[in-house]
């Protein structure tokens, strides 16, 4: 009889306590959800971002009109061959400004298409205002390549100013 009792005790199922793992999992999930909210600005991989020593966190991407400014293809290929490959796939030769439309399709503009860029920014601004975004929150998010000449960046800023957007955000990466 005593033997039987001992055997029945041995047969008790050993279960792993899953609750700490689930807790950890939820914490990680929340961390990544919060971080993912920041990254709503479409990023073009062809742009080699500049670095800045003092820059603030991008907390809210709402109201940002993203314009990518490209360097010359020769410089792009010297630094990152994949970047040039992606640039050639997405844009026509001679493209210096790149934007993405509502369906995330890439649109490129060359040096002589500053007016078309202005029209695009105007449309974006009007669409954002119609959605209820405050005018002071509508900003040009300039993702300029570190090696792009200043005249291209200033051209994009001029186009934005002509479209009624005077707040500029320079996209950078931390220098350290």
């Amino acid at each position, binding site marked *: 009889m005593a033997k039987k009792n001992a055997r029945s005790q041995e047969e008790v199922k050993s279960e792993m306590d899953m609750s700490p793992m689930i807790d950890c999992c939820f914490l990680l999930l929340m961390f*990544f*959800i919060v*971080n993912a909210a920041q*990254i709503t600005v479409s990023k073009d991989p062809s742009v080699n971002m500049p670095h*800045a020593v003092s820059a603030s*966190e991008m907390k809210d991407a709402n109201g940002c009109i993203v314009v990518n400014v490209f360097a010359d293809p020769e410089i792009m290929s010297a630094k990152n061959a994949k970047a040039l490959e992606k640039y050639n796939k997405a844009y026509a030769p001679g493209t210096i400004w790149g934007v993405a439309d509502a369906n995330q399709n890439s649109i490129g503009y060359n040096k002589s298409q500053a007016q078309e860029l202005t029209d695009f920014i105007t449309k974006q601004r009007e669409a954002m205002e119609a959605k209820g975004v405050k005018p002071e929150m509508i900003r040009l998010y300039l993702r300029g390549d570190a090696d792009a000449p200043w005249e291209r960046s200033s051209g994009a800023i001029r186009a934005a100013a002509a479209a009624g957007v005077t*707040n500029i*955000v320079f*996209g950078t990466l931390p220098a350290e």
Partner: protein
Amino acid sequence: MARHKKIQAPEEEEMTSNISSMIDCCFLLLIYFLVATSLVSEKKLDISIPPPSDGSSSKKPKVDPGNIYVTKAGVVTWNEGLTVGEAYDPSLEPGTPAYLQQRQMESLVESLKMLKDQADSVDTTPVVMLHGAAGAPHQRIVDVMAALSEAGIHSVGLSTTSDE
């Protein structure tokens, strides 16, 4: 008595909910956000362009405006006299001490802070103009913007000059 005991036994079993499907969902979401998130997130430098003047105001500003010049080679000068940044070297690797040193322009930050203090003392906003050569590298303009941001100046006039 024996009959009564037999009926009670199954009722005493612990009720446990099956959470394995919830954990599966949770893991799927975790993997999705892990892939969608890049930890090195982009930072920003906010600058606003001053509104255009109609030319009717002939008032002299209370504080002399500060002028920053960036040449095609990336040399930065303050008020046409003081060189505050050496020529841009695109071969430097990001993250190296030499690269960091090139990004920092302490003397420009100091000059800008002095200008801001002067403007604050007479209760006005500092006026800064950035004259960039057409071929000046964008990185050098961002360096100047970072210096302006460090000095607490968020409004700057921009102009493009010829490469000469």
